[in-house]
């Protein structure tokens, strides 16, 4: 490469001229990304400032680590980080296991209509917004009219006020997270199963393997690369809370926060509800840095495992 390159500014402008069509085509995307992704990165200085409306990002006074101090000393940092990580671990484990089970069992269904029908229905929740899922949650868990309480009382139990019972929410959130992602997620594993060489199954059959041995000794080991890759990729996002989900299911129900508040919902409230720009920016920066590190680590691990799957 170095040999081909003309040295100096002149060579650079020659290249610009040579690539003018390419550069022109890139221009809109580059401008967009500069404005909507790179420029906001400079705004993280707000995390170290006391924001005033008049001062804006650049004119507001510095206040050192005050915003972080408040975030950490109030105990909220620990709580929301714990919640975010624990929820994500639970989501990753439950979703992975269920999605793999669904993918494997779907391929075992030989009635085409039954298979297609069930797959289509499982995919349906992916298409609707979390706002609608919020309505569904209300429909099922509302204390007065909810289906769940109707069932509980029908079997002689005492109705539960779900929206004031924090301990119920990890389960409710896990349920809806799985519910929304099961069809979507299993597609990846289905593709991996399709890619397995059929001669391996034939060999297993000749060796007298029964169908369960075939699943546990052939299918599951063969889709391990996909599983591990997807697993590591999701580990990269372990400090990211799904705002859409938490906000629509829990909303501003402060009674549940101990069990449901994640980094993203706290950052949102600090900004929109409390108008505390500095603290919200501090929470955002805290999260961005954690995300950045985990993505790099996860990517490194993917690289150790299989070079082809690294993201960069």
């Amino acid at each position, binding site marked *: 490469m170095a040999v081909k390159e003309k040295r100096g500014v002149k060579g650079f402008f020659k290249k610009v001229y040579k*690539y003018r069509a390419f550069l022109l085509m890139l221009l809109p995307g580059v401008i*967009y990304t500069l404005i909507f992704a*790179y420029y906001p990165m*400079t705004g*993280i200085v707000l995390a170290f400032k006391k924001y005033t409306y008049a001062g804006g990002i650049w004119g507001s006074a510095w206040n050192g680590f005050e915003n972080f101090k408040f975030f950490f000393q109030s105990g909220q940092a620990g709580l929301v980080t714990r919640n975010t990580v624990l929820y994500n671990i639970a989501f990753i484990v439950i979703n992975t296991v269920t999605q793999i089970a669904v993918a494997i069992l779907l391929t*075992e269904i030989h009635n085409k209509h039954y298979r297609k029908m069930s797959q289509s229905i499982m995919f349906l929740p992916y298409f609707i917004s979390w706002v609608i899922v919020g309505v569904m949650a*209300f429909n099922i868990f509302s204390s007065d009219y909810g289906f769940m309480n109707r069932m509980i009382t029908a079997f002689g139990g005492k109705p539960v006020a779900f929206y004031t019972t924090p301990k119920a929410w990890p389960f409710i959130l896990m349920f809806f997270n799985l519910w929304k992602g099961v069809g979507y997620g299993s597609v990846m594993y289905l593709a991996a199963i399709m890619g397995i060489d059929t001669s391996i199954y034939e060999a297993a059959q000749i060796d007298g393997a029964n169908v*369960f041995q075939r699943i546990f000794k052939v299918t599951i080991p063969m889709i391990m690369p996909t599983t591990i890759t997807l697993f590591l990729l999701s580990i990269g996002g372990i400090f990211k809370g799904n705002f859409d989900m938490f906000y629509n299911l829990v909303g501003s129900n402060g009674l549940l926060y101990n069990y449901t508040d994640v980094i993203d919902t706290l950052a949102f409230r600090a900004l929109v509800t409390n108008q505390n720009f500095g603290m*919200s920016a501090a929470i955002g920066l805290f999260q*961005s840095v954690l995300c950045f590190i985990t993505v790099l680590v996860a990517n490194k691990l993917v690289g150790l495992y299989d070079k082809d799957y690294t993201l960069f």
Partner: protein
Amino acid sequence: MAAQTSHLGKVKNGKDVVALNIIAYTFCGFIALICLVPFLMILAGSLSSEEAIIQNGFSLLPQDFSVEAYKTVFEEPMVVVRAYGTTIGLTIVGTLLGLALQTMTAYVLVRQEFEWRNVFSFFFYFTTLFSGGLVPYYLLIRQTLKLADSYLALLLPLLFSVYNLLIMKSYIRSIPDSLIDAAKIDGCGEFRTLVQVVVPLIKPALATVGLFIALAYWNDWYNAMLYISESASTKYPLQYFLYRQINNIEGYKKLIANGAVSGSVVSSVSLPTQTLKMALTIVVTGPIVLAYPFVQKYFVQGITIGAVKG
């Protein structure tokens, strides 16, 4: 899908096969049922009478069948129609612009003779690794660009996504270089090559990425919540409109009561509440559920391709 039966086609029906079949049919059927039930409950709720819901709660089947809730929604149809209009408009414009932007960018980034493609690829990719977070973005839209309460605040944030760019890149990469080279020899410039040679070849990609973008616009409520204030509520897109009405159902009832045709004085108290929420949800969700069977396969393609390294 057809291929998957082949490797299992010849197995004799031993006990293990029967057992697995029972497990597979039951498990998948059960999960599918669970996925369907919440939809059915909303539908059933919307078709029940308010009294029945207050007395018994929601269930799987309509109780005391009634279309009162739908009548109430359509008492003042304009608010729903307007929200639909906003969302449809945003979805169409956003999808077309987003597709153009993403296709053009992806095309350049896969062209081998463009020496700087890796630098630019990283320029885009880095934005998925690190971000300024909520506050700087919020201030960018509201204060730097002054887009609050405008449609642009709903259009711009979703226009460009690196994830879609990666999908697009892997589709375009599959086009043989010889086709592009041939166009070049015929004297086509880059723009003409893109429009006349590449675009016709990546129609499935355009469908897939286009649908991903469209779905993002269709389901967006977040940007409206952040950037559209109540005084500009006529600009609410569909999902946020639903969010507002569900969470302020009394306000919605008043809106309907006030807007109802003059003469028939309707009191908001007499309007249904719980069933109204359900009916409104169905009115908002219905079209996407109906369109879903036709677009599902493109999403499946996109997910599978997206899994491949971009």
